[in-house]
């Protein structure tokens, strides 16, 4: 059951230019939060910004949760100014987590930019619950914007990097790296990042017969599945089920459900 709580910011650091990690003291939420789920953050008290900001859990600790975010607009710009010790109202955990399926032999995490955010928690869960150490592909525009690579290495994951300018890892896209890793039918691929990157990842998985789970991002109003503002189009003929809610049916979807033609 989701909670709505005032939580203290215990750590707030810039991990890359314009990218921040925030740790929130939230025992009740941490107790229930799973990899892939998210929380809605009220950036500041009052009516501005009007909507909460959805942020997925980077890590779930005993008494706290951490999030990773990139300053994109007004809400995250204000958020970046918050100091440790200040309170923030947090609603969560929300949404469907990543499914941990022991039937897969191999697990590959594919992150684009800030899309790496849900994966440290997922890697931990795969290692801790399934005893499977995933491989990780992190793609970003350049070396400075690669984040969390060391965290994955510390967990024992093999990390592959790709950048647009070749300053770290290979020059190219995450999907190219995935293709080279030759996933097969017993491989689960988890992706999160910009829509074109997830679409390309989905296509590689279709071609190789592997299963792809996409963690989608959307602007949200309620976060609770009622307002239908965050929907994406699914490959479903039935009118009533064609639009799926990122906040409630997702944010993690089997990529075959999503109508990628739209994106």
């Amino acid at each position: 059951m989701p909670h709505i709580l005032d939580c203290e910011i215990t750590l707030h650091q810039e991990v890359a230019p314009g990218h921040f990690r925030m740790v929130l003291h939230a025992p009740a939420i941490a107790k229930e939060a799973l990899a892939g789920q998210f929380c809605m953050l009220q950036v500041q008290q009052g009516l501005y910004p009007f909507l909460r900001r959805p942020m997925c859990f980077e890590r779930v600790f005993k008494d706290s949760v951490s999030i990773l975010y990139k300053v994109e607009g007004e809400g995250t710009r204000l958020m970046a100014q918050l100091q440790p010790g200040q309170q923030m109202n947090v609603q969560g955990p929300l949404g469907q987590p990543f499914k941990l399926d022991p039937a897969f032999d191999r697990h590959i995490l594919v992150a684009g930019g800030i899309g790496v955010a849900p994966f440290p928690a997922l890697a931990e869960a795969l290692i801790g619950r399934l005893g499977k150490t995933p491989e990780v592909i992190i793609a970003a525009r350049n070396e400075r914007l690669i984040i969390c690579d060391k965290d994955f290495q510390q967990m024992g994951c093999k990390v592959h990097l790709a950048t647009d300018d070749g300053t770290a890892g290979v020059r190219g896209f995450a999907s190219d790296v995935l293709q080279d890793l030759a996933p097969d039918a017993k491989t689960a691929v988890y992706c999160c990042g910009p829509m074109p990157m997830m679409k390309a990842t989905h296509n590689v998985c279709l071609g190789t017969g592997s299963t792809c789970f996409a963690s989608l991002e959307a602007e949200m109003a309620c976060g609770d599945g009622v307002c239908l503002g965050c929907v994406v189009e699914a490959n479903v003929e039935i009118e009533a089920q064609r639009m799926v809610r990122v906040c409630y049916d997702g944010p993690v979807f089997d990529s075959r459900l999503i109508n990628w033609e739209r994106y």
Partner: protein
Amino acid sequence: MSINLEVNVGGLVMKNPVTVGSGTFAYGQEYNRYFDVSQLGAVTTKSLSLKPRAGNVPPRLVETPAGMLNAIGLQNVGIETYLKEKAPFLRERGCTVIGNIYGYSPEEYAELAQRLEAEGGADAIEANLSCPNVHDARVARGCTLVAQIPEEVKRYTQAIKAVCKLPLFIKLSPNVIDIAEPALAAEEAGADGVSLINTILGLGIDPESRRPILHNIVGGLSGPRDPAGRREDGVGRSQGAEDPHHRHGRYLHGGRRHAVHPRRGHGGLGGLLLVPAARRLAARGRGTSRLLRAPPGRRHPQPHRRCSAIILPFA
């Protein structure tokens, strides 16, 4: 000590004067995770149509400084699924239900209302004659909303009233010159109240691309609009919005809620539900619209004006 908050709104008995704006609460299940939704005076459902609707293509939201634009496009499960899967949930919990309906013709509205009554899906009907986001229907009527033409409001109201005995509220649009006209038309045709207001038509532009953000181009503005927005929309300003307790309404997400007062006939909804006959207000020498347009801070003389909204705290 318990306080009796029961109100009778145009024939609908509610245990307290708080309900939710249609579309901000789905069919009640999701928010029951946070609190017992039967504590509400009534649950107002998402607009129900005869057939399920997928709604508009995303993006559907634009955040504004004190609210949001939405262009959902009446995505809903359809009356069939509502009666089979959603209504039983509300009924089991003893919720009072205001069934919001949407159709393409008076006949469709009548059929929806009739089914909700016959199959116990609602205790009152709210006819949405004012959704700004459904272009197919607007174009079919020459780019107007039903609620923008008083004669049409009358025709639709009569059609529903002829087949359904439940209290009927007509949800009107602020996108008119004088909302008193459709309100009076609804009353003349036998409606038991009007729900004020549906969203205000608006346009959100992406400053980078200089293109509309919504795929639908335009959307409907809702939210507390408080205090500056009040002056902008005028019509939607309610006395409920002046009540300091009312401001907490935003915690119920989506920012819109109805609050109903039995005698005054209005509370807040980012709009409000105006209950007693518009004619009665007019007979007092102040037209409906004028009453609603009183500038912020001005008080009406009625002593009971202060208790127009009771807000249910979250969790």
